[in-house]
C-alpha cells in the first residue's frame, strides 16, 4: 500500500464518520458535496471532512481506495457507504437512520424525519 493509501486508510479508520468532499463542510464547493454535507449537518451527525481539492494525491487516491470514480464519498466506521445519489436515497428511505443506529453513530431522528417530510 502506498503512503497515500495508508494515509486514507488511517483517516477512514480513525473517524467514525468521514466525508471526502470538494470544499469543506462549512464551505462546500460542489453541489453534490454540499448536498451530502448538508444532510449530515442537518441531522446533527458529527463527521470529519476531507477537502480533496486541497490535495491532488488524495483527490485521485480516494477514487482508487474505494474503486469509485466520484466525490463525495461517505465512510461510516470504516465502511464505504456511497456517494451523493446513494446517501440521498438512503436518507429518504430511512436506511441511513438504520445504518447509523446499527453503527452506533448519534444523529437527530427528528431532523431526519423533517427531511423526509419536506421531500415527501
Amino acid at each position: 500500500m502506498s503512503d497515500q493509501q495508508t494515509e486514507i486508510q488511517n483517516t477512514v479508520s480513525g473517524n467514525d464518520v468521514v466525508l471526502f468532499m470538494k470544499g469543506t463542510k462549512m464551505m462546500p464547493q460542489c453541489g453534490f458535496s454540499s448536498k451530502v454535507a448538508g444532510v449530515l449537518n442537518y441531522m446533527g451527525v458529527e463527521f470529519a471532512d476531507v477537502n480533496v481539492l486541497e490535495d491532488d494525491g488524495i483527490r485521485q487516491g480516494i477514487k482508487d481506495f474505494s474503486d469509485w470514480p466520484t466525490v463525495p464519498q461517505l465512510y461510516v466506521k470504516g465502511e464505504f457507504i456511497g456517494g451523493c445519489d446513494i446517501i440521498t436515497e438512503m436518507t429518504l428511505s430511512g436506511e441511513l437512520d438504520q445504518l447509523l443506529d446499527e453503527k452506533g453513530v448519534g444523529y437527530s431522528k427528528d431532523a431526519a424525519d423533517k427531511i423526509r417530510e419536506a421531500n415527501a
Partner: protein
Amino acid sequence: MAIQAQEIEDLIRAAFPKATITITDLAGDGNHYAAEVIDESFRSQNRVQQQRSVYAALKGKMDGPNGALHALALTTKAPE
C-alpha cells in the same frame, strides 16, 4: 467536453443488454445527466455494487477534470 445522451445509453447498454435505461439531460448542457438503470442483475447487490458496475460500463468517462461527464446522477434498482 460534452457527451450525448445516446452515447451514455450505448455504453451502459453494452454492459447491461436487457436493462431498462432512462437518460435525462438535467441542464440541457450535455454535462449534467441523470441515468436510471433497472436490471435483473442488481437484485442480489447493494447500491454500491450496483453503481460501481454502471460506472465500470462508462469506462472512465466520469474520471476527473478530463472526463466527458462531470455529473451523472445515478439511480439503480432491480425490476419490481
